[in-house]
């Protein structure tokens, strides 16, 4: 597990890993770090999830998908949305970062590099198509709240960059 605040019954991990983010289907919600706790009590599971962004429209769907997956495994469940501690991109696992890159979304850099990229126009984000860092910011806001739009000046491919949130 990525952080000490997480509390997930081991038997539930394989079930929850099968639930994916509806907006980034290659990414499991476990690799995204949005499941903070999942505990079995009398055959019912209490699940706590935290939103990536406040307005993330995927949260309601994720809640429903978790309920369905647990039901299929024979558990009733209760989903609770928690805001504290606030989600950070640091909670995306290494496997999650790789899944993002394979899907064509550049994974978040660290906070300092992220500032250089979004504020000072530094060219360090790797193009997910050709690997070049000759890339530029097109817009700080992308197809969803968590991403920014980039374009590669070598292969011309437009792509999303997952903004660092800390």
């Amino acid at each position, binding site marked *: 597990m990525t952080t000490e605040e997480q509390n997930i019954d081991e038997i539930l991990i394989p079930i929850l890993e099968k639930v994916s983010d509806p907006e980034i289907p290659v990414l499991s919600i476990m690799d995204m770090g949005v499941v903070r706790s999942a505990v079995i009590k009398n055959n019912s599971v209490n699940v706590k999830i935290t939103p990536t962004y406040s307005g993330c429209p995927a949260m309601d769907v994720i809640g429903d998908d978790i309920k369905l997956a647990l039901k299929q495994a024979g558990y009733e469940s209760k989903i609770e949305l928690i*805001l504290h501690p606030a989600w950070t991109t640091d909670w995306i696992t290494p496997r999650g970062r790789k899944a993002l890159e394979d899907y064509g979304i550049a994974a978040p850099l660290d906070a300092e590099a992220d500032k250089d990229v979004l504020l000072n126009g530094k060219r360090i984000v790797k193009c997910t198509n050709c690997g070049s860092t000759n890339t530029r910011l097109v817009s*700080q806001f992308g197809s969803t*709240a968590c991403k920014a739009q980039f374009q590669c000046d070598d292969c011309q491919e437009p792509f999303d960059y997952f903004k660092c949130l800390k």
Partner: protein
Amino acid sequence: MKNENLYNYILGIADNSLILGQRLGELTGHGPSLETDIACTNISLDLFGQVRSYFQYAAKIAGDDRTEDDIAMLRKERDYKNVLLVEQPNTNFAYTMARQFLFDVYHLAFLSELQKSTDLTLSAIANKCIKEVSYHERFSSDWIKRLGDGTEESKVKMQEAIDGLWTYTDELFHQTEADKAMVAEGIGVDVTKLKDAYYARVNEILEEATLEIPESKWFQKGGKEGIHTEHMGYLLAELQYMQRAYPNMEW
């Protein structure tokens, strides 16, 4: 209601985000370019997300059968306590960005203080929102600079927008009765203390944008007491239409 001051205090905060979010949402499919269209609606989405957290909490405090949707959609104009600034229309893109900037600088300073609230739900919401709002402030201050220090025409338009909206800035720092009660309990933010840093930051960006800092000392107020400008009724008519026409509709 047992906690009426807290309830009103939360609505005061949330209504700013709700009404500004609605204004930005009007640009869906109508932004000046694809990127700015997406940016404005992304910001709108962030604000609506924040509003949900506040209204869910407010509904819990009310303790009756009202829901977050009732609070958002079914109040009368006088019961919305947002500042006049956020209800001003999208006259042109300069106005949209100037309104955003003048609010974002305040919003960021406000949330930074709200993080210290003794109310754990409010401090958690602030802690979550501030990360999003720092992106908003970057975006809007960039546009102030780009348009202010841009072409002759963009400079004229941005100066007009700043001059036109300036009269609504002072209200941000007025205290309501609920404010005072919540500050006394360590829950609320003393907005009067944010004023100097606010104008220092705003003036710094305006100077960088080669714009004139307005000198007018006459300011409009009333939103926090529910006395709104003529634009508010039209905005609410659109915001509330679905719930009024099809009560209890969900999507």
